[in-house]
């Protein structure tokens, strides 16, 4: 018997199927991003239109029918309200139609837990980086503790904003990386406060440099500066808390340069390092299904009043099964 998970916190509508921790399907459809970015109402329309298609695709990839599904999970938050609504609606439909239990899942917990599961590490220091989030965390009892985080925007958001200001085409993060390949270093503000960091000052300074410097130089320098801040803060959290391993997850974990830096940092302290395959770093349904299955196994029974969405669902307030 399998568990189905539905993810719809941003522009991806993802459906995953998991059975005893094994990933049987991980299907998705992504709203095509224009240079206007994500318009929540349009994206939710797109999700509503494609929800049943993606669910059908996932079932067929897992070679099963709805009769084999014994539970459903959905992303409760954080994310964009109108997008989250569609995922929840799809999950509630399955819940009521099939009479199976339903589990609300925290998006950040799901990214981290699936990566932890695939890594086999028991208690790693986590760097979670995406468009909206940039956090350094580790498990403290039944909750994640945030050691450090961005005090303004997520690192992915910074890369996107810069790319748009520089007139690049989507997908922005990887486009910045392509431009950065031939760049040379120019000095930009480097802001780490304890284990927290900020990106808006860096973004503004980088955009101001654009008219007088080459796009390659600014892309390279901004990317190096931002990733250095993240890895340095992770290094501090790692050593202060004496963990034996490091994992990287979230959309920006697809960056090869960030992976390289974090791997080098971890190796320099003889710590193990893991980053999952990109299908799990991008938003996906498998991670939601995985956490929902764990919630089911641990005997968690969500109240009817928990079956909502929460756009600002902080990870500290979410339990970890």
């Amino acid at each position, binding site marked *: 018997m399998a568990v189905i998970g539905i993810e719809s916190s941003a522009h991806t509508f993802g459906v995953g199927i998991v059975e005893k921790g094994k990933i049987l399907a991980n299907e998705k459809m992504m709203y095509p991003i224009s240079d206007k970015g994500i318009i929540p109402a349009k994206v939710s329309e797109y999700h509503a239109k494609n929800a049943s298609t993606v669910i059908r695709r996932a079932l067929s990839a897992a070679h099963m029918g709805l009769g084999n599904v014994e539970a459903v999970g959905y992303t409760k938050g954080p994310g964009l309200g109108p997008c989250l609504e569609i995922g929840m609606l799809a999950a509630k439909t399955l819940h009521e139609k099939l009479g199976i239990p339903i589990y609300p899942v925290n998006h950040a917990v799901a990214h981290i837990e699936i990566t932890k599961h695939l890594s086999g590490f028991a208690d790693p220091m986590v760097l979670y980086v995406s468009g909206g989030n940039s956090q350094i965390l580790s498990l403290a009892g039944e*909750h994640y503790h*945030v050691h450090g*985080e961005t*005090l303004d925007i997520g690192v992915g958001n910074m890369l996107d904003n810069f790319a748009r200001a520089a007139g690049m085409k989507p997908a922005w993060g990887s486009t910045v990386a392509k431009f950065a390949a031939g760049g040379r*270093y120019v*000095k930009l503000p*480097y802001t*780490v*406060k*304890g284990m*927290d960091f900020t990106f808006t000052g860096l973004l503004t300074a980088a955009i101001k440099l654009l008219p007088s410097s080459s796009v390659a130089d600014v892309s390279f320098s901004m990317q*190096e*500066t931002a990733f*250095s801040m993240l*890895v*340095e803060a992770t*290094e*501090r959290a*790692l*050593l*202060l808390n004496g963990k034996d391993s490091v994992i990287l997850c979230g959309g920006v974990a697809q960056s090869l340069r960030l992976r*390289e*830096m*974090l791997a*080098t*940092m971890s190796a*320099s302290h003889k710590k193990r390092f893991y980053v999952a395959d990109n299908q799990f770093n991008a938003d996906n349904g498998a991670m939601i299904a995985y956490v929902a299955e764990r919630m089911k196994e641990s005997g968690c029974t969500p109240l009817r009043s928990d079956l909502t969405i929460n756009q*600002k669902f*902080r990870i*500290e*307030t979410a339990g970890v099964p």
Partner: protein
Amino acid sequence: MTGIKGATKIAEGSEADIYESRMLGVPAIIKYRRRKPYLISEIEEEIRVQRNKAEALNMNSAIIAGARVPKILLFTAHSIFMTKIAGIQMARMAQDDKNYNPAAEGSGKMLAVLHAHNIAHGDYTPANIIVDDRGRAWVIDFGLSQRTNSEEDKAFDLLLFKRAVSRDCYKAFVNSYSENYRAAKRILKRLSDIERRGRYQSRTMAQA
């Protein structure tokens, strides 16, 4: 560098290796800023040299301002040799230790002195307070400190300390801070502005 001759490595921070030795006849601490192999050389050198320099300058400024801070014995491109403070980290003290409350007040006063002289510490947590046997608080690790008159930077010192201690400890700390720093009210106002920013709200709720 794998070690310092005649010195014993006592700790590995994220920034630096800490050695203990004797110098000029007194117990000394040597803070050596390690290489960071994951950084490009420009950023690495910038961080090592600039932070080392800023740290030494700000320690000296803090001493001149009247704060309890280790004294610098020798300074090189990547290391600082300083006097050793005898005592224990406030972070390792039991809350019922007779020196705990004096330490909370003392760390509030020390931060007041630093802020009154426009020094933001940058990592003001109980791990960076050494409490001597008379309950006096000494401030160490100026590695992330900066000269600034920004309310925001000063408020972050308060925020870091607040997040790391109990409510009672913070109360003693902040009372002493307010008594010893004329602009304290403005900084505390800025702190509550920061805490009202979305991402701190549920964190505060989760802690409550």
